[in-house]
């Protein structure tokens, strides 16, 4: 529960904020790109939903979580390593990797899908808010677009990506933190490595999973 709180609930604010603005920008950009009456206006809602569900929420928010959660995990474990707290756990007779990293992985895998679902809702809401308040699209048209051609497999695809990304973020950052050697400088370096490597892994796995699940 502590890990769910630390890794998940702590991120609700930033995820909600970024998602709302991300959805708003997507909606406005779509509206400005539709310059022909041949394309119906509900396309704004439809494309906003598809972009958010398929890519922006699972991938962009996971990249943001890689920065927030990844640095937290790596620096926490790195500090525990350099202050000999991990050695102390090992001396007591506990496997420190299992004790420290496994609950974080479980927490992230459980809580990240909830965060991403929330992100999708907030982004779609942000798009509606921006579209309606700027007068680019009518509320009913946007909502019609949101509902149009909906395939529930898109959500499954997004959730599979989210779970894999959550695992990558915590395990890669945890690895770098756990094997930190030295002092404060090295803790900082581990934190940076954790974020960079997990971000790269997310980008690479995004392509692999998309090919596997959508192609």
């Amino acid at each position, binding site marked *: 529960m502590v890990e769910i709180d630390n890794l998940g609930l702590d991120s609700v604010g930033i995820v909600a904020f970024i998602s709302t603005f991300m959805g708003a920008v997507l909606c406005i950009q779509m509206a400005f790109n539709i310059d022909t009456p041949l394309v119906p206006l509900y396309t704004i809602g439809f494309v906003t939903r598809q972009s958010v569900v398929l890519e922006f929420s699972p991938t962009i928010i996971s990249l943001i979580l890689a920065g927030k959660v990844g640095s937290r995990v790596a620096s926490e474990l790195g500090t525990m390593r350099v202050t*000999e707290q991990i050695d102390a756990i090992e001396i007591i007779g506990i496997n420190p990797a299992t004790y420290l990293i496994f609950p974080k992985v479980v927490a992230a895998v459980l809580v990240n899908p909830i965060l991403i679902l929330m992100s999708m809702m907030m982004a779609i809401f942000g798009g509606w808010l921006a579209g309606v308040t700027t007068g680019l699209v009518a509320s009913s048209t946007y909502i019609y677009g949101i509902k149009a051609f909906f395939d529930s497999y898109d959500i499954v695809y997004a959730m599979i990506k989210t779970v894999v990304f959550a695992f990558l973020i915590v395990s890669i950052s945890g690895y770098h933190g756990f094997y930190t050697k030295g002092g404060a400088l090295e803790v900082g370096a581990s934190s940076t490595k954790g974020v960079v490597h997990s971000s790269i892994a997310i980008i690479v796995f995004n392509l692999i999973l998309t090919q596997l699940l959508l192609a």
Partner: protein
Amino acid sequence: MIEAKNVSKSFGDNLVLDEVSVRFEPGKCNLIIGQSGSGKTVLMKCLVGLFEIDSGKVLYGDRVFSKMSFDEMKMIRQEIGMLFQGGALFDSMTVEENVMFPLSMFTNQTPAEKLERANFCLSRVKLENANKLFPAEISGGMKKRVAIARAIAMNPKYLFCDEPNSGLDPLTANVIDILISEITQEYNITTVVNTHDMNSVIEIGDRISYIHKGKLWWQGDNESILKSDNPELNEFVFATELTRKLK
């Protein structure tokens, strides 16, 4: 009894321990002394299995510790208490939770029983009113005492102390030394203390092993160390002008 037999350890090309053989007796404060970088901490970490040795053996009684798997080591580690140089208290836990941590992991005691044991251990190290404080809220000396309380919570057979006095004023350092010595005798623990503090050597050194350049250079007790004619040992023991004059 703990015994190291021909233990060698190197990091890359750097040979840190060179065939060290040393025995640590129960009910005694067994001190490992030596200059910084001489290999004391590496020897201690080899003894507790935090470093894998390159060759030789580490024995706990007649059990060959150095050849054990992690799960086999786990049984012996439950008999080990260790005081780390910086205390190594879990900073997300209170003092009381730190002391109860090994009990929560390895016993089926009720919360009340664990609390009772934690209170006993904390009173043993003369820390009665710090239960709810976090490590960041207590002094260096108090941290060391909490670490000792945590180390003795499981009634260990073996107690390892890595530079228990580092960073402490002489009076607090002496309190820690006396505490370690009392606990060792009271529970007949095999205590291994890693130090370069000469006050500790004189105060509690029942058996002293001097490590020099990764080798066991000299062994004796706190009386014979002052009379030794070993030049390297004398250079270490009587390092200051004042101690040389006193000699």
